[in-house]
């Protein structure tokens, strides 16, 4: 496969995954912000997804959603993300299923419809966010049932799980900072719940542990759960698997990447909650973030160093 194509496939799914994550987060924060605006303000969300040059902050929910969805100056606005995803998809049309291309093209047309910003301002913002998110769910489903299991699919999945694990670790780190800043145990539990909601694990948590918030349980679920598709372990395991499939199909040379992923996977798998607590949750997550950064840089270098 062309290196450029592989790179575009990775980024296609990275962008789609990022969009999905941002939309979920906006919805969760919208509800939380209605309950306790002082705990769940909009500023940290804007900060998390914008560059250091951004100077736009707001505590108005609709204004924030508008900025996060439509603003062209915000490189992580849904509009920019989907535009970039579509450009990536457009240039690899012969590698992805026709249905997948049509799906993303239609999402782009939906987003650029002139009437859409009005809907955000005049109608139910939650419905607005859910309608957008539906396009991501359709995208995942379409990819699942129409894309052959081959190099294109594996590269897309590498992008998807890489982006997901980056988001989860970034977001968890963000919440940990907030938790560390308070001594109120009720407030702490709100933050933990918000973290679970944001990564989509709240329902599973209730099913497993009922309505009692225990830090250890939450940490185990976010980092180590084998069945939860948005746990750090699950993502790293999938990443590892797809990288190995690419090596097996001769699309990727055996290199450092395989080693880095294997190492991270077993670190997560075999670190006990006790030892996490011992080294401090913050240190633990910073370690994971560092590893993921190295893996991400390594994936990029595979495609960019190969110039001649």
């Amino acid at each position, binding site marked *: *496969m*062309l*290196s*450029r*194509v*592989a790179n575009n496939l990775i980024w296609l799914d990275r962008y789609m995954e990022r969009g999905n994550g941002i939309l979920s987060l906006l919805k969760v924060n919208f509800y939380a912000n209605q309950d306790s605006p002082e705990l769940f303000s909009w500023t940290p969300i804007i900060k998390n997804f914008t560059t250091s040059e951004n100077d736009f902050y707001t505590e108005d929910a609709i204004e924030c959603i508008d900025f996060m969805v439509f603003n*062209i100056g915000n490189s992580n606005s849904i509009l920019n993300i989907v*535009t970039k995803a579509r*450009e990536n998809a*457009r*240039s690899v*049309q*012969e590698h992805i299923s*026709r249905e997948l*291309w*049509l799906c993303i*093209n*239609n999402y782009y*047309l939906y987003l*650029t419809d002139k009437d859409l910003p009005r809907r955000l301002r005049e109608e139910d913002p939650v419905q607005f966010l859910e309608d957008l998110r539906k396009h991501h769910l359709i995208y995942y489903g379409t990819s699942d049932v129409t894309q052959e299991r081959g*190099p294109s699919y594996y590269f897309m999945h590498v992008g998807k799980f890489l982006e997901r694990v980056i988001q989860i670790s970034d977001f968890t780190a963000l919440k940990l900072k907030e938790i560390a800043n308070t001594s109120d145990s009720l407030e702490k539990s709100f933050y933990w719940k918000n973290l679970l909601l944001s990564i989509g694990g709240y329902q599973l948590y209730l099913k497993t542990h009922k309505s009692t918030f225990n830090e250890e349980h939450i940490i185990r679920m976010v980092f180590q759960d084998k069945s939860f598709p948005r746990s750090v372990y699950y993502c790293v395991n999938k990443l590892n698997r797809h990288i190995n499939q*690419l090596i097996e199909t*001769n*699309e*990727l*040379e055996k290199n450092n990447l395989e080693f880095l992923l294997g190492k991270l996977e077993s670190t997560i798998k075999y670190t006990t909650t006790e030892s996490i607590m011992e080294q401090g949750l913050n240190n633990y997550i910073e370690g994971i973030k560092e590893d993921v950064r190295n893996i991400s840089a390594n994936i990029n270098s*595979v*495609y960019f160093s*190969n*110039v*001649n």
Partner: protein
Amino acid sequence: MNNNHLFSSYDKLPSTWDEMYCDSKKFRAQYEGFIEYLKNTSPEKLTKKEDLSKQLFMSQGVTFTVYNDNEGIEKIFPFDIVPRIITAPEWDKIEKGIKQRLKALNLFIKDIYNEQFIIKDGIIPADLIYSCPNFLREMKGVKVPYDVYVHISGVDLIRNNDGEFYVLEDNLRTPSGVSYMLENREISKRLFPGVLPKSHVRSVSNYPNLLYKKLKELSDLPNPNIVLLTPGIYNSAYYEHTTLARLMGIELVEGTDLVVKNHFVYMKTTNGLKQVDIIYRRVDDDYLDPLEFNAKSVLGVAGIMAAYRKGNVNIVNAPGTGIADDKAIYIYVPDMIKYYLNEEPLLKNIDTYQLGKPDELEYVTKNIRDMVIKKTDGSGGYGMLMGHEASDEEIKDYLDNVKKKPANFIAQPILRLSTAPCYINGQLSPRCIDLRPFALAGKDGIDICPGGLTRVALKKGSLVVNSSQGGGSKDTWVLE
């Protein structure tokens, strides 16, 4: 339901051939079936179909992006829902005429880059060839597979008021529009369910398969690596490049994906370099190889011409074919047909005056109101003077410019392009059209897809069909 209102304000242009009407009342036989359909369909329904067509072009991604202040806006190439219909005998004549013409043009290119008999025999003046910017010295003596230079062409035809088809220009470099031939047909199938089979319309969907076959035949390898080279996403024909690559199942590459090593062309893959055997390029000659042509080009591949000359890669169309579709050379095509094939041209040329010849310049200046003047190396409908609608000042300025280098200009009488019915504001109105059929040449001869791109000048009374200047297109039905 009767929808006769549809035809009530069909103002035929004077002394112009209309594709639908024989005279003011009678329809041509090939349109009768479709007219029946239109009469039985309410205007509301037709307008809905028109909306549907726009929606389909957008949702299928048949668009090009116009960039404005970093913001991309998706545009569609305007489409008129009423098909243009061509009878079997008409098509037969077009097909034979284009084949004859392409055969002669291909022989001409071969001759020009090799022995140059046509110059030695005094048919075409040498200085005309050597002063042509599209003549590539780099192609002299290069041997090309099966002597085919022009593999893919789109000859533009117009129908004059005598009912005959005339050749407007031979597009022998990187003609575009074939994806619209395919896409317009797909749209028609959805707008008019059941009407196509009932009308016995010949299918065009085989084009990508045929193109792939012609490309593959150029190589002796059982499984040659064929790629389509695009200038990239900012090119207005990018949609076409992605479509053709997808429909042929070949890789779409950009200049930066390719590299030349030891006179072989490779593409950069995740698993190292992979040799490329055949390149269907949609990049112009000028940008193909920064080492030999435009040094600033980032769209091409350094060293690709050297690899080509060594026969290590095939480039389709061959570089240098522009010498044969130059507007100054156009005048000599009927002579070429006689010279190389010893045949009379089946398709006529339009009378063309070379302004480099003082008597012709004088004649054109005198009759300027009936003339259109074009630059010999221009394209896309730019840089033209339409004598009948220009102001005195515009004419004066243009002629001053012509006099600086008259050999760079040609003039033609203003043509009466035939008109076809278009669905505009709920009614049928005549609009000027042309026709670009697509021909494929290979080892076993020339094939022409039964159809083509009918371009329409959507502005009332306009003769300019170019998409960059308010033109649109129609589906083109060739009947069995």
